[in-house]
């Protein structure tokens, strides 16, 4: 395709692409997200491609390997349009039938449909599945429309028309006004008003300015940015271009986590394609606006999600934060005015410019507008990515969309906001997913991770887990974070290993308070949250560890013992054979017994027993 030199040429290209695609009668959208890939969606794509060719449907069927659809638990998943037919757990062996039955004859294959676990009924369309029905997918639904490596797909779906509209008629001030009126707030965790950040950068003196996309998604248990950047990289780029126009930046960077190789690859391809078409580079679409983007890989340091640390890393340095007396919007990358937004924030921008601030602000709660993508994981039935309007109650997400408890153990808590967030108990599940409401409750919406915990999850262990994570990830520059987290971890480890003392709980709170007030950057300031929130809502669990030497959830190794349930054991001998420590005795078809002195609590017998007969208490 030749370089586009005007807005008219862009529209002309879009029209001709649409014309080329007129003969297409069916579109098959296969999820190529990480979850479905692990479940071998690649092989399925190849097999379907072959079948479509050999059954002579090459010109009428479009096969598209897309980004994540969200329902990872059921992968590989696919949707066939028209008809919105949803197939799950599809394998390459199903390719022949899908083509000959569904595509040629229009028949639905019953076996591949999703079965609602509540009613046992097979559901034919994606829209009717409870997991999708109760969502409001604005960003994620666009993943289905494009092959992430095809700028043509993006153009056919209306891509870059927001950029074109902005360059043709909106001044930087207009753009900032629109984004401000939309009420868009940073999706990376801070919830800072995007419009205000842009305005500050716009007003900052200097000709050299930068925009950065923070795709260093380091929160363990969160992968929505990955899904957006991997699945629809052009939308993120378009958002960055509009932002760059608004603040007057000539150069942008996508700082992407190296643990996400597909996101790195797809964003690189997208940049190359946009450059080739003249959508990135000098005089974009023939206008006076010049802007380019480079892709930089992160080094695997959680602290680099913090804006000043990220910028240091982009400069090739160690990712240590600095005090933010002067905002990065004024003095950021190379000390120049820099706007840094998260992937999801950037991805929201094009639609705001196309449909207007009112459209965006119509969704959400009073203080938090639009939709939010959440990574719903942990001990829950329907794990995957979920997008709902801000202000949706936690209950809706966990029980209606998530389908509730996975293994029959009642749900106890949800952890939101990653290592900076907190754990909320089930009686707080009527709270709305809103920046301010969750912060008031001692947690935060963060980047959108929601890890569900049930009665087999120990809250002391969870607090310890996050402290270990933060101790490892603290850059060590400031003392409160470096030493404070060490001390908190020491105490929580004492408690988890049965050496805890009652007075340590108050000490933990005092320490947490001090760290929150004195640490240099966001990582340190929020580091005590996982401990403080579990202490606030699950103090009884801490006390059980300290006063009774008991881990109620059966997790903390020094406080638990393994035994065999006499009612369930049928003496099959699997546990005996699997135990590497010879800690299990018993005759065939007789009750087996675990020798507590030899048992190393490795968990193998429990994972191998088919009869759920291994007890941990």
């Amino acid at each position, binding site marked *: 395709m030749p370089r586009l030199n005007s807005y008219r040429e862009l529209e002309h290209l879009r029209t001709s692409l649409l014309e080329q695609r007129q003969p297409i009668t069916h579109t098959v959208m296969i999820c190529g997200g*990480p*979850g479905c890939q*692990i*479940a071998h969606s690649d092989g399925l794509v190849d097999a379907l491609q072959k079948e479509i060719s050999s059954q002579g449907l090459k010109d009428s069927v479009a096969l598209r390997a897309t980004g994540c659809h969200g329902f*990872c*638990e059921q*992968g590989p998943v696919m949707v066939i349009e028209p008809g919105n037919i949803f197939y799950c757990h599809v394998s390459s062996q199903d390719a022949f039938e899908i083509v000959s039955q569904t595509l040629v004859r229009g028949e639905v294959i019953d076996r591949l449909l999703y079965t609602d676990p509540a009613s046992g009924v097979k559901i034919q369309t994606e829209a009717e599945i409870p997991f999708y029905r109760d969502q409001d997918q604005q960003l994620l639904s666009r993943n289905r429309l494009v092959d992430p490596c095809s700028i043509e797909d993006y153009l056919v779906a209306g891509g870059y028309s927001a950029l074109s509209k902005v360059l043709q008629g909106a001044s930087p001030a207009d753009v900032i006004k629109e984004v401000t009126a939309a009420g868009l707030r940073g999706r990376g965790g801070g919830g800072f008003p995007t419009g205000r950040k842009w305005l500050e950068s716009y007003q900052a003196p200097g000709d050299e300015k930068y925009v950065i996309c923070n795709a260093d*998604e*380091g*929160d*363990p*248990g*969160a*992968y929505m940015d*990955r899904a957006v950047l991997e699945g629809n990289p052009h939308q993120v780029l378009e958002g960055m271009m509009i932002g760059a126009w608004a603040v007057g930046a000539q150069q942008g960077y996508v700082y992407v986590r*190296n*643990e*996400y190789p597909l996101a790195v690859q797809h964003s690189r391809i997208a940049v190359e394609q946009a450059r080739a078409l003249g959508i990135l580079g000098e005089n974009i679409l023939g206008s006076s606006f010049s802007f380019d983007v480079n892709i*930089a*890989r*992160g*080094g*695997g*340091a*959680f602290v680099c999600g913090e804006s000043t640390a990220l910028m240091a*890393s*982009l*400069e*090739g*340095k*160690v*990712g240590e934060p600095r005090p933010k007396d002067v905002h990065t919007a004024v003095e950021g990358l190379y000390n120049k005015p820099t706007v840094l937004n998260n992937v999801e924030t950037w991805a929201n921008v094009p639609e705001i410019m196309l449909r207007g601030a009112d459209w965006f602000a119509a969704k959400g709660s009073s203080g938090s507008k639009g939709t939010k993508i959440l*990574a719903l*994981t*942990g*001990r829950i039935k329907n*794990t*995957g990515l979920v997008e709902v309007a801000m202000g949706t109650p936690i209950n809706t997400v966990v029980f209606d969309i998530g389908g509730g408890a996975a293994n029959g153990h009642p749900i106890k808590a949800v*952890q939101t906001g*990653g290592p900076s967030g907190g754990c909320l108990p089930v009686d707080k599940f009527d709270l709305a997913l809103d920046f301010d409401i969750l912060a008031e409750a001692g947690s935060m919406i963060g980047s959108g*991770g929601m*890890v*569900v*915990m049930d009665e087999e*999850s120990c809250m002391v262990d*969870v607090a310890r*887990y*996050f402290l270990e*994570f933060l101790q490892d*990830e603290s*850059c060590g520059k400031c003392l409160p974070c470096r030493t404070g987290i060490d001390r908190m971890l020491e105490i929580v480890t004492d408690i988890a290993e049965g050496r805890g003392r009652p007075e340590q709980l108050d000490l933990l709170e005092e320490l947490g308070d001090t760290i929150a007030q004195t640490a240099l950057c966001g990582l340190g300031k929020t580091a005590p949250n996982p401990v403080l929130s579990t202490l606030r809502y699950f103090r009884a669990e801490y006390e059980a560890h300290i006063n009774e030497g008991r881990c109620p959830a059966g997790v903390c190794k020094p406080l638990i013992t393994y035994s065999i349930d006499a009612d369930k054991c049928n003496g099959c001998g699997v546990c005996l054979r*699997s135990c*590497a420590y010879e800690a299990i005795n018993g005759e065939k078809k007789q009750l087996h017994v675990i020798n507590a002195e030899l048992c*190393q609590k*490795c*968990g*193998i017998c429990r*994972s*191998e027993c088919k009869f759920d007969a291994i007890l941990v208490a």
Partner: protein
Amino acid sequence: MPATTMENILEGRRSQPHQLIEALHDVQDNFGYISEESIRTLSQELGVPLMEVYRVAAFYKAFKLTPSGKNVITVCMGTACHVRGARLLLDQATTQLDVKPGEVTEDGLFTVEHVNCLGACALGPVVVENQTYHDHMTPGKLRNLIQRCGCQDKEVGQDA
């Protein structure tokens, strides 16, 4: 594909200190670790003090200063994997192979690593054996996986 050399990696990056991390990534990807020699070369060619190159290479988890074992077993320790029992998996791998995370076994066959999150939370707990992802892992499945890897390598060794 022709092998990438240090020369390829340095191309277009000379005397540009801000390219350090990107260059380190390429060294890591192509040579498996960051050797002392490559640290010295990068320092000289990019114009970054030797100490700073070392500091950056040591700071970021993506870079390894020593080579890994033949098989790399990576246990995902993300929150979602954690609440589904990832710690038992890490314990299993380190006990079975008698190494600490990050270390290489004496026979050079294995390195056990842990990673903060692989972004495949829905399928947790996840273990990656070399490039292959294994979902919904249990200590028992992991034990068999490690045994299989070890046996294969021993057989290959005997054939040769």
